[in-house]
């Protein structure tokens, strides 16, 4: 009965949503001059950043990203706080499984490659698809793999915390430096460089690297926390 009701309600909702969105048109230009045109123009002409998404994420809407990073930080902290227990023995894992040697060897083999890929992705965030978040996530996957493969693989919680904090501090400080140099928060105060070079886009690349570190540390810490959760 309840399910029927829910389906009915959802059908109505779906109908309205669909009616609304299908009227929007697909793949057409809907507005004369939105912000995207400005972004597409300026990202090349002023920021010298190839990846427009990166320039938007880190510069035009960099404030969002700062918030986003904070959300991640909060989420990890919140997990730590929520799962906190009075007598907490570090190193005890709640999820214990023995992996086969294939997995172990494969992981060992793959781990550096994964880390390298991640680092590549967030270093080239302003040039090619990807960026700090993606790279960070990939790095965290590497650690996940290692944690799955090795029961006693451990990451120093403090190290993660340092990386996390320093990266965050660096982000804000870069923003504040922009504030002091150029007048507004997160303003680019470094030379923009040449488009499609690694050292281009001013602070954008640096910030994205920081974000990469931070995301990697946070996701790893997150996995680590859950993995060490005991009943």
């Amino acid at each position, binding site marked *: 009965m309840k399910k029927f009701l829910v389906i009915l309600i*959802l059908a109505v909702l779906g109908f309205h949503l669909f009616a609304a969105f299908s009227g929007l048109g697909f793949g057409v230009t809907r507005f004369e001059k939105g912000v995207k045109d400005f972004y597409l*123009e300026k990202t090349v002409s002023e920021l010298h950043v190839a990846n*427009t998404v990166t320039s938007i994420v880190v510069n035009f809407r960099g404030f969002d990203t700062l918030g986003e990073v904070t959300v991640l930080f909060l989420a990890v902290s919140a997990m730590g706080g929520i799962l906190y227990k009075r007598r907490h023995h570090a190193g005890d894992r709640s999820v214990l499984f023995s992996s086969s040697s294939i997995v172990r060897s494969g992981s060992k083999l793959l781990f550096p490659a994964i880390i390298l890929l991640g680092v590549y992705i967030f270093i080239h965030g302003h040039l090619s698809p990807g960026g700090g*978040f993606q790279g960070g996530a990939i790095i965290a996957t590497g650690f996940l793999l290692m944690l799955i493969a090795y029961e006693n693989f451990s990451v120093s919680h403090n190290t993660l915390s340092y990386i996390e904090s320093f990266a965050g501090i660096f982000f804000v400080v870069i923003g504040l430096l922009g504030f002091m140099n150029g007048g507004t928060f997160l303003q680019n105060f470094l030379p923009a460089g040449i*488009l499609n070079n690694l050292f281009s886009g001013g602070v954008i690349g640096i910030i994205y690297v920081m974000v990469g570190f931070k995301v990697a540390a946070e996701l790893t810490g997150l996995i680590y926390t859950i993995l060490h959760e005991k*009943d």
Partner: protein
Amino acid sequence: MDDKLFEILEFGVYGASILLILIGLYAVLTKRSLIKIVIGMSIIDGGIHLLLITIGYLKGGTAPIFSPGYEEAAGQMVDPVPQALVLTAIVIGFGVTAVALSLIIRLYRHHHTLEIDEIKRLKW
């Protein structure tokens, strides 16, 4: 691309994203397991992200990345803004999911169940 195909695609992409939202909502509203509810929430997020990306799509557009020599291709590019938004939204959704999962662990510690109907000590 074929116009006919494109029309179907239009229907399909919007339909798929909305269907994802509805499926997620259905899970949130009817599934009794907390884990499934969280999965439902993630599915909703996925649907909405798809929706956002779809909105930014431009017929025949390319990725909003300037390659050397194609600096003037801005008119051919899909809208980068929704993509940036989705990036942010994904991370936020991820954070929320993480908190939700940790809360579920806490709830399981106290209630020894994951049935949402049995976790209503706070009411009225």
